[in-house]
């Protein structure tokens, strides 16, 4: 792409890169990796809908927006801790405001034995060498624009390690607050004000590296919240590695500002006998993209994914899940539910590949979706590619409406239509989190879900 064709989006981020003083700058390999990723991002720009992975998510409007190069006051901006309190989650916490680590809001004293938890900005001040492999990654595919951008501009994030055989009982809380950058936000921002980009739109980028040693156990909560209405762009790239026999349970609660753009890219690698269960609840954001790539790399590794999105207004949420079975007797089980109301749009792609030699794999994927309005849209696409023998695989995808008979049944007992719809919709989603054994947190997710459904 020639200079003349650069979109305002690319231009503004290029300016941001020129001004940024990122943690870790001066480390030769890191500078080089950042530069190369920035060049790749600028050259390719944002993908268009001809790129298969972006078929249902157009980035043209985003390409016309400009973002300020980060929040100078992020380190001191007042944020009410109540915005990110979660019942059942009172262990160690790292809090980031507009992508900047906030020691004053975090809880990192008295970490349990075997847990090492640090902001990336701090880790880069010490021996950065252990981070080299993850941070010098190159993203080649056309669709990886945001991963490149993140690699070029991220200076903070989470570095979390659990020592072999350490079992961390208390969930670790990772909080990402998108905070309005200009004073207090109006209580009821006019829709027109949200539709137009302004100088206070910020871009922030966080990069996480998580490793569970052999036999380690961890429960992790990733939490995106808003402090005041804003239309920031957040990008996040997470690498998670589970060594032999390690167990991870992760809950992601995405409750970002209604005007924001949030792009997350997760890579999860499971070695022998490792097990991961990932719960995802997508509620917030205007434009949200989540790439979840998991590799069952070791024999007998198991992955469960459980996800729900509940959309309204003009929200657009796109989940792209790719699971690769590449070892013997591996199992993956994925259950996703989507609800779209008003003019919102949900996209779910679940691609499962059983690689050659991954005999005895067991893969199942269910994506069921509910349209609550005639103008909402959900595109779901399960894909299954099998190159191995003795494989058990099942997948199903549906998009439908609420069952009229059930609605009438509830109404015939006196429950008004809106309430009946909310009740049935919640029931449709609720089963997804039934296996989450943190009762307080599960109930909280339930309440959040109910609060996002159309109700009386």
């Amino acid at each position, binding site marked *: 792409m020639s200079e003349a064709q650069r979109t305002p989006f690319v231009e503004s981020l290029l300016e941001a890169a020129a001004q940024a003083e990122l943690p870790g700058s001066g480390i030769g390999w890191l500078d080089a990796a950042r530069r190369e990723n920035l060049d790749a991002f600028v050259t390719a720009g944002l993908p268009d809908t001809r790129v298969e992975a972006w078929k249902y998510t157009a980035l043209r409007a985003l390409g016309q927006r400009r973002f300020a190069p980060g929040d100078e006051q992020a380190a001191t901006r007042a944020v009410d801790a109540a915005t990110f309190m979660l019942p059942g989650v009172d262990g160690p916490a790292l809090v980031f405001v507009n992508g900047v680590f906030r020691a004053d809001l975090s809880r990192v004293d008295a970490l349990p034995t075997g847990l090492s938890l640090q902001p990336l900005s701090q880790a880069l001040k010490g021996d950065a060498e252990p981070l080299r492999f993850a941070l010098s990654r190159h993203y080649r595919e056309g669709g990886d624009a945001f991963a490149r951008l993140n690699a070029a501009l991220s200076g903070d994030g989470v570095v979390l390690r659990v020592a072999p055989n350490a079992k961390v009982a208390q969930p670790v809380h990772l909080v990402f607050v998108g905070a309005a950058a200009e004073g207090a936000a109006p209580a009821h921002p006019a829709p027109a004000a949200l539709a137009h980009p302004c100088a206070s739109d910020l871009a922030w980028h966080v990069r996480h590296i998580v490793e569970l040693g052999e036999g380690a156990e961890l429960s992790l909560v990733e939490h995106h919240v808003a402090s005041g209405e804003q239309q920031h762009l957040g990008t996040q790239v997470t690498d998670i590695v589970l060594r032999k026999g390690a167990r991870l349970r992760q809950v992601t609660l995405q409750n970002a500002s209604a005007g924001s753009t949030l792009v997350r890219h997760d890579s999860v690698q499971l070695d022998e006998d490792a097990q991961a269960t990932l719960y995802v609840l997508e509620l917030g954001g205007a434009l949200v993209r989540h790439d979840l790539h998991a590799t069952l790399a070791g024999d007998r590794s198991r992955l469960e994914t459980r996800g729900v999105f509940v959309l309204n207004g003009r929200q657009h949420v796109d989940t792209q899940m790719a699971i690769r079975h590449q070892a013997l007797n591996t199992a993956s089980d994925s259950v996703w539910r989507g609800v779209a109301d008003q003019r919102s749009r949900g996209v779910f792609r679940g691609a499962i590949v059983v690689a050659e030699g991954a005999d005895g794999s067991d893969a199942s994927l269910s994506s069921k979706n509910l349209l609550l309005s005639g103008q909402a849209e959900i595109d779901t696409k399960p894909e299954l590619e099998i190159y191995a023998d003795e494989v058990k695989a099942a997948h199903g995808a549906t998009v439908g409406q609420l069952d009229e008979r059930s609605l009438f*049944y509830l*109404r*015939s007992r006196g429950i*008004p239509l809106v*309430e*009946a719809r909310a*009740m049935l919709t919640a*029931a*449709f989603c609720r089963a997804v989190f039934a296996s989450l054994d943190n009762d307080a947190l599960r109930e909280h997710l339930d309440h959040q879900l109910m609060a996002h459904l159309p109700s009386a």
Partner: protein
Amino acid sequence: MLKIENLHARVEGKDILKGLTLTVNPGEVHAIMGPNGAGKSTLGNVLSGRDGYEVTAGSVTFNGVDLLALEPEERAAAGVFLAFQYPVEIPGVNNTYFLRAALNAQRRQRGEKELDSMQFLKLVREKLKIMQISDELLHRAVNEGFSGGEKKRNEIFQMAVLEPKLAILDETDSGLDIDALKQVAQGVNALRSAERGFLVITHYQRLLDYIEPDFVHVLADGRIVESGDKTLALKLEEHGYAWVADKDPALSGASA
């Protein structure tokens, strides 16, 4: 209480009810019998407000209010209850939660105070005793995995909690063995009172051995063609529905 006059209704463009007239007063139990296709279930559905039923003529008033102008939930709040022929299974919605939401929604619509969970639990315990239902049923999702008998008993249990003024039982006996039938009938009888009217829709006389009606009406081709006391049901049992058709040559083509 319930006044149906010259009711005409159609489903999917087909006329089903063709001039039905019936009055139910408080305390009365009316049985509506009739062959398949006579319009029995249509009557229940029209009265409870299910979509897809078009009333083309006639009127239905309930305690002076135009029932047909009300939404299903408003009819429920006004005191109309339909026990379904096929109760719907609703996975993910807890039976107790559902019932409390229903009762409180009705109370809200009537301008009454909602019951808190303690008051509700007390009420439920009382009703469970009357219905002889185990409270295990309450902890499950609405009708999910219930046997045919459990589903019907759950309908009657809901009726006991919601305390309607008019209860419509739509072929409540269908698919029940004799023990389940007796249990359901027992529940219904426990709810009979001077203030409550019943419309018992059934194909077979059998149910009426256990729920004794004050009036029996024969529905054929969308109209009530014969009315009498409980002995009419026995006559029907003996002679079959053809007997009614024979009495009214205009119907001979319509009976099943």
